[in-house]
C-alpha cells in the first residue's frame, strides 16, 4: 500500500487532507495566503496557479509536467480560494474541468492499483479490490475476443451517486454487471468516476451572500501577491471573455425571441451552455439536431458551443456541418425521457405535462416530439397575435 501522505500530496482533494495536513487545511484562508506567499515557494505557487487558469482559458486538456509535490496542496487550496473570490461560474467550470482532467491523467498513469483502492477508501466508497483481477464477461466481435476484467467492484449506491451527473447510456445501471450489491467496474471507468468527483469538488456555485464575499475580498486584497494573481486572472478573463460569453439569441423572421417557443429540454441545455457547463454527448447531439431541424445556420449552432469548457471551433464546425448533411432527426420525447433529458417536470411545463388539443384532460393528445412543441407554441402565438390585431382593429372602428 502507498504512503497516505504521498497520496494526499498528489491528490489534495481527498477528504483525509484535513486529518493529515491539518496545519494547512484548517487555517483561516487569509492567514493561509499570507503564510504561503511568505514562504520560499511563493513565486512558484503563483506561477503554478496562473498556469492553471491560463490553460483553462485556452481550453487545454492537460498541463505538461504538472507537479505533484507538497506544493500541490497549496495550489489546490489557493485554487479553491480564488474560485470563491472570483465568483464566476464560467471560470469555475473551466478550471474544474481542466483540474479534473489533469487528475484523470495522473490516476490513469498509476501503476499500482492499490493506490486507486486507497483513494476510493479515502473517499468513503465501498469498494472490493481483486488482485489478480476478476473476469465478469466477454466481448466478441468477429474474431476478436476481449475478456472483461477488473480489479474493482463498487457498491451500487456509491456507483449511482458517482454517476449521477453523467448521463451516457453506458453508465446506466441496467447496462452494467451487478452482483450482490456491487457493480463490476473497469479500472478506467472507475478513474473516470473519480474525475467526476474531483470536478464536482471544485464546482463552487456563485455565492448569494455577496456582502460576505466583499468583506473577504477586502481582507485578502491586502495581501499583495494574492491581489496580483487575482487581478491578472481578471484582466486576462476580461480580455477573453467575449470568446466565451457569446449570448445565444436567435431571431425568427419577425424578430420574435424564439427561445420562448422552445421546449424545456432545449431550454435546459441552452441554460447550461450559457453557464459554460459541460454538456454530455447526448445533450450535444440533441441540441445540434434540434436547431438544425429548425433551419438554424451552422455558424450560429457552432457559436452556441463556444462557451463550453472543451470548445474547439474547427472540430465543432466539422461535426455540426456533418450533422446538417445527414439530416438527423432530434430525439423524440420518449427517448429524451429514457436519456433523462426530459425537463417537463422540473420546468413544470404545461404543454409537455398536459398535452394539447381538447379542453377535456382525458382527450388531450400527448406531446411526442420536441419539434411539435415549437410548432404548437408558434401556432398559438400566431393565433394570439391575429386575435390581438383583430381586437385592435375593432377598437379602431
Amino acid at each position, binding site marked *: 500500500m502507498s504512503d497516505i501522505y504521498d497520496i494526499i500530496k498528489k491528490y489534495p482533494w481527498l477528504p483525509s487532507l484535513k486529518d493529515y495536513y491539518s496545519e494547512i487545511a484548517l487555517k483561516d484562508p487569509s492567514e493561509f495566503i499570507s503564510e504561503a506567499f511568505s514562504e520560499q515557494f511563493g513565486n512558484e505557487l503563483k506561477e503554478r496557479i496562473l498556469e492553471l487558469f491560463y490553460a483553462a482559458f485556452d481550453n487545454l486538456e492537460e498541463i505538461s509536467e504538472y507537479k505533484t509535490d507538497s506544493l500541490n496542496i497549496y495550489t489546490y487550496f489557493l485554487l479553491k480560494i480564488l474560485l470563491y473570490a472570483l465568483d464566476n461560474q464560467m471560470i469555475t467550470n473551466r478550471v474544474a474541468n481542466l483540474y479534473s482532467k489533469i487528475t484523470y491523467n495522473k490516476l490513469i498513469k498509476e501503476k499500482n492499483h492499490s493506490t486507486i483502492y486507497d483513494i476510493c477508501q479515502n473517499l468513503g466508497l465501498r469498494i472490493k479490490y481483486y488482485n489478480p483481477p476478476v473476469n465478469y*464477461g466477454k466481448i*466478441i466481435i468477429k474474431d476478436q475476443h476481449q475478456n472483461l476484467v477488473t480489479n474493482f467492484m463498487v457498491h451500487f*449506491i456509491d456507483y*449511482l451517486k458517482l454517476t*449521477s451527473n453523467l448521463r451516457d*447510456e453506458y453508465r446506466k445501471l441496467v*447496462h452494467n*454487471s451487478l*452482483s450482490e450489491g456491487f457493480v463490476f467496474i473497469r479500472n478506467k471507468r472507475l478513474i473516470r468516476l473519480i474525475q467526476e468527483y474531483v470536478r464536482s469538488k471544485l464546482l463552487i456555485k456563485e455565492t448569494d451572500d455577496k456582502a460576505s464575499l466583499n468583506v473577504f475580498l477586502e481582507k485578502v486584497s491586502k495581501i499583495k501577491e494574492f491581489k496580483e494573481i487575482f487581478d491578472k486572472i481578471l484582466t486576462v478573463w476580461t480580455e477573453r471573455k467575449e470568446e466565451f460569453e457569446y449570448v445565444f439569441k436567435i431571431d425568427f423572421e419577425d424578430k420574435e425571441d424564439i427561445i420562448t417557443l422552445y421546449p424545456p429540454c432545449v431550454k435546459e441545455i441552452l441554460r447550461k451552455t450559457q453557464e459554460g457547463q459541460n454538456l454530455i454527448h447526448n445533450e450535444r447531439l440533441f441540441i445540434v439536431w434540434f436547431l438544425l431541424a429548425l433551419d438554424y445556420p451552422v455558424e450560429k449552432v457552432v457559436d452556441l458551443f463556444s462557451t463550453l469548457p472543451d470548445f474547439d471551433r474547427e472540430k465543432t464546425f466539422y461535426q455540426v456541418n456533418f450533422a446538417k448533411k445527414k439530416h438527423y432527426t432530434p430525439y423524440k420525447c420518449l427517448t429524451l425521457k429514457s436519456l433523462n433529458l426530459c425537463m417537463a417536470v422540473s420546468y413544470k411545463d404545461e404543454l409537455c405535462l398536459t398535452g394539447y388539443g381538447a379542453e377535456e384532460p382525458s382527450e388531450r393528445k400527448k406531446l411526442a416530439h420536441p419539434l411539435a412543441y415549437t410548432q404548437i407554441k408558434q401556432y398559438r402565438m400566431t393565433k394570439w397575435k391575429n386575435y390581438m390585431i383583430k381586437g385592435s382593429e375593432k377598437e379602431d372602428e
Partner: protein
Amino acid sequence: MSNVAYLKRLFQAYYKEKGKEIPIVSLFDKREFGFIPWDKQFVMKRHISFSNFDSLAKYIINEGPRHIYSSGTIYLQPDNTDMNNKEYQGCDLIFDIDVDHFYTPCKNDHDIWYCIECGNTGTGMVKKCPKCKKLKLKQLTWICDKCLKIAKKELMKLIYNFLIPDFGIPLNQMKLAFSGHRGYHLKIENAEVRTLSGEERREIAAYVSGNNISLEILGLRKLNNVIYGLLRENIGWSQKIINKIDKILHNYTDDKIRRLLITFGLKADAIRSFLNSKDDFLQSISQNDNNIWNIEGFGLKTWSTFLEGIISMIGTEIDEPVSIDIHRLIRYPGSLHGKTGFKVQELYPDDLDNFNPLNEWNEKLDPIVFESKKKITQKIEIIEAKIPATKIKGETFGPYTQGEKIEVPHHIAVFLLCKGVAKTI
C-alpha cells in the same frame, strides 16, 4: 343508514377493536400521514404527524377514515404544510406492484368498461373505446385469485431475481404488504438507500423492470451481415436474458413457444423459422466463445423484438413513478382499504409462498377482516349496471345486475359496498 355512514362506523369499530394490532412503522414520529375521509370524497387530509402510536389510534377511531397512508419519507417536521420546510431526511425505497398497471389475461373476465361517449361496453384492459376511439371511459376493475397470484409472482421476482442477488438487499430490510386491493407493496428500510435521490431511484427502477435497455450496449449488433448476439458470460441483464431463453427452449413445447412468440409480436414466418432452428440456436447460446446468431429471416429488428419480449418476461411489473417519488405516501400497514374493506396485510417473505389474500387459512395473515364467524348475512341492492362474479373464501357470488336485491355474507356485503356497486337496504 347511508353506505358512507355505515362503512365509516364499521371501520371505526374495527379500529377500536383491532387498533392495537396495527404495526408501528419505523421512525413513526418522523413520517407524514395522510387520510382520505368518507364524507368528503377523495380530498386527502395530509401533512399530519403523530408523536406516538396512541395518538394515531385515537385519531383513526374517531375519524374512521376510508384510507390511511404514511410517508416513505422521513422528515424532521412531517406536519409542516410546506414541502420545502418539512426538513427532508431521506426516503425508504418503495416498490408498488399493482395489477391496475399491467395486463393480466383474467381482466377479460372481470374488468368492465363503459364508453361515456358512445355507450359501447366490454371487458378487459383498454385505454380508449375500440369503437369511437374516445378516451372517456368508466371502468369497473375487479379482483380475482388469478391476478393476485400474478401480482405475487411479480413481487417474488423482484425479491429473488433482483433485490437479493443483484442489489444484495437482505430480507430483513424488506417490509412487504398486501395492498388490500390489487397488489403488493415492498419497502426497503435501509439508511443508505434512504439517501438516494429520485434520479438515482429511477436507475434502480429501470434495472428491475428492464425498461429502456439498449440491446446494442448488451452486445446485439450486425456486422457484415452477421448478427452478433448476447453472451451468458456477461453478468447482469445479458446473462438473465440468455438464461431465460435457455429455460424456454429446454422446457417449452413447440406450441407453447409459438404462442409466446405471437405475444412478442413476431410474424408467422419468423416463428416458423425460429422453431426450425431452435436446437442450433440453443447450442450457440450454450457456447461461451460464439455469439453468432443465425436464424433464417432474423435481422436486427426481429432479434430486437424477440429479445424485448424476453426482457418483458424477466423484468418486474412495478409502478415506476412510485419508486422514483421521494415524497410518496403509501397505505399504512394494518389499515383498511376503503375500496374493498380488506386489511393492508403485512407479510414476511417466508409467508409469501402460501399467502392467498382471498382465501387465507392463516388467521393472522387474513386480510378479509369482516368475515363473520357467526355466518351473519346482509341484504344489499346492486346499483351498478353489471358486476362480475366475486370469489372470496372459496365461495363465488354473482355476477349481478342492477336492481338485484341479494343476501350475502357480511364480508361480501362490505366488499360490494366499499366498491360502490351496492347500497344497504
